[in-house]
């Protein structure tokens, strides 16, 4: 009996082993572009935004005839919102499926994790949404980032504040995640450099129903500016509870995401409580870049909601990849990489795209303010379509 059990066990073992080895190897009549994103797990909502953005770009490209005479196909690997799975994804896409370029991942930590893997395999990587600055530290020649980083957020916000009224005190309220902590670090450094006093730096556990105690601590410190680093819809809860606490800084500013979500100023989000908040933004539908409005309309038509800039960044990443492949007239990784380096896309819905020596696209960061339930660009002056309203009126006077 024992022998049979042991043998059966070994048989199960071998079957499972073989099963993992039998994966689709893909046909040669499409151009496959590898994608790593978080389809499941804590970041699934953003992985979905990515997927949608990629889908729109892919269909656009295929409608125009595809690449190198073939249709474009996306090979998507789910990193389950974990960095080790992202690393495994690189192996699966490159070693197993033989893709020659990878786009992704969503979060900074997952992206940072895959840098050694793509560098070792000499596969170009285009990062759509990783904003932490440590992802560009490796200076790998295979790595390119489309979006602006946390340091840019902080610097642009400080520059805007200097212009607008030069406040002296600031409080940072940030969520206790990589996004929050990285942005807090960037703003701490930028504020120190600008001589702004940080009177309160408060971290919070995301997705809680009650932040009033946190806001109470900040209120006690009486800052002129509050810089939120909030994801998700905590922005709505925070603003509503700020109103309840009668917290009245002169400026509500933020590092985007929650405060730059499409629903945030609407009735589906914080509604009137969002009024007068400033946010950094990488993109919004009303931006003066050709194709922005069309992307927004197409996204709404397909998915019945308005895209945040993550979807646009994914869309742009695929557009860049496609442009590079077509410029290089080849799907080989080193040729694609060289094409990306020399890329010069003057006008895309994400603005002009060009990568500098370390692979960073100098993407402008905009500062928006919610005015009348809509996002209006207020800084820098060249892109502004409205003047900033400062200071924010007290809650009791609204």
């Amino acid at each position, binding site marked *: *009996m*024992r*022998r*049979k*059990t*042991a043998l*059966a*066990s*070994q048989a*199960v*073992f071998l079957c*499972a*082993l073989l*099963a*993992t*080895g039998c*994966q*689709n190897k893909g046909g040669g009549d499409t151009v496959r572009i590898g994608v790593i994103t978080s*389809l*499941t797990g*804590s970041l699934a909502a953003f992985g979905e935004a990515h997927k949608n953005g990629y889908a729109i770009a892919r269909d656009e490209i295929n409608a125009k005839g595809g690449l190198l005479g073939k249709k474009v196909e996306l090979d*998507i*690997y*789910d990193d*389950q*919102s*974990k*960095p*080790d799975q992202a*690393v*495994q994804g690189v*192996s*699966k896409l490159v*070693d*197993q499926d033989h893709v020659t370029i990878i786009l992704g991942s969503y979060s*900074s*930590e997952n992206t*940072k*994790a895959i840098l*050694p893997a793509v560098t*070792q395999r000499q596969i170009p990587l285009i990062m759509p949404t990783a904003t*932490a600055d*440590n992802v560009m530290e490796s200076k790998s020649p295979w790595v390119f980032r489309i979006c602006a980083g946390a340091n840019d957020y902080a610097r642009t916000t400080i520059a805007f504040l200097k212009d607008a009224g030069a406040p002296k005190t600031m409080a940072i309220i940030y969520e*206790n*995640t*990589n996004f*929050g*902590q*990285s942005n807090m670090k960037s703003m701490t450094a930028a504020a120190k450099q600008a001589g702004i006093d940080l009177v309160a730096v408060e*971290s919070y556990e995301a997705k809680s129903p009650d932040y009033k105690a946190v806001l109470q601590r900040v209120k006690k410190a009486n800052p002129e500016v509050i810089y939120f680093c909030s994801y998700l819809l905590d922005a709505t809860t925070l603003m509503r509870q700020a109103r309840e606490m009668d917290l009245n800084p002169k400026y509500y500013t933020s590092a985007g995401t929650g405060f730059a979500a499409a629903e945030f100023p609407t009735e589906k989000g914080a509604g009137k409580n969002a009024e007068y908040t400033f946010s950094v933004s990488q993109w919004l539908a009303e931006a003066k870049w050709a194709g922005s409005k069309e992307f927004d309309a197409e996204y709404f038509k397909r998915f019945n909601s308005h895209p945040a800039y993550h979807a646009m960044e994914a869309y742009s990443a695929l557009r860049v990849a496609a442009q590079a492949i077509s410029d290089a007239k080849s799907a080989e990784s080193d040729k694609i990489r060289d094409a990306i380096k020399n890329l010069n896309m003057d006008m895309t819905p994400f603005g002009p795209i060009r990568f500098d020596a370390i692979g960073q696209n100098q993407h402008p960061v905009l500062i928006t303010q919610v005015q009348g339930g809509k996002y209006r660009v207020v800084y820098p002056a060249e892109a502004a379509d409205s003047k900033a309203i400062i200071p924010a009126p007290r809650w009791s006077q609204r």
Partner: protein
Amino acid sequence: MKGLRSWQLWAVLGIAAACASVPLYVRNDYLLQVLFRIALFSALGLAWNLVGGYAGQLSLGHVAFFGVGAYGLAIFTDLGVPRWISMLLAAGAATLLAAIIGRIVFRLRGPYFTLATIAAGEVLRLMATNLKITGGAIGLTTPALFSGQLFWKWFYLAAIGLALITLIINYRVSRSRFGYYLMAIREDEETARAVGIDSLRCKLQSLLLSAFLTALAGALYGSAFQFIIPDSVLALDTSVQIAIITMLGGAGTLLGPVIGAVVLLSASELFKNQFKESHLLIYGILIVAVVLFMPEGIVGALQHLFRRRTKPPDVAAGIAPGGRDLSGSGTPRRS
């Protein structure tokens, strides 16, 4: 080894050699990573088996030791300690942690114990997220225990080695007096204490050993993927996964954790590639199905398949007598 039939010794060595030779013909890094995971989780399952299988203490906080292994490796190396010594120091730290946690949680029984272990794991995760020394939510880069072009091959072999070591330890424990004490505690702790077994001390010892091995695995894992965050090495669902693997494979048996790791991890990866977003749904269905139709785990089900009715308990073979019967009726199973 006492009582081990020669064919079994050869079988084990044979399988070990087969596993070790895999990198000779599998050059695909992706497959090596999947196999690495399988081997590592076999080791984790076997380490957990000491506490959860033989002693019957359902711990869902083992990720705490896993994480301490990974973070310990990173932090000690940063302080200047050579990598391999760091790894041992990290495992030592985990053992110390186990001593502290054990004193608190082992006074509790049943679900209370389990919940307390969950709490312990979560406290560690939250501390790692909030403290600077662990890099917070931003994470830490880990030193590479193996480097070079083919480093996955070495990680895989190290994992196989660790799995083998934990297998041998399980084997020795299962037929030692210590092991019998543990099983006695599992079956009926009150009676065990009545006959003079120091249950607290035994449980603690099993936890210390388990923690040490789990931390070694954690250090390996952290090093292989080169970057750790609290959610990757201190997440509750890793604890649950280790427990599920062992329970579904067959807790309290030698092969159970291994088979569980092989089946569940390959299924998980297969589903991910086949089903994209719905892979978790299918995985959930798989778990429910196994619980409904294979309540004694896969090994138990296989044993049923081959069982003959009047066979006396076979102590000398590779499976512990009264191996964990998941139906939990409490009486030792007769084979």
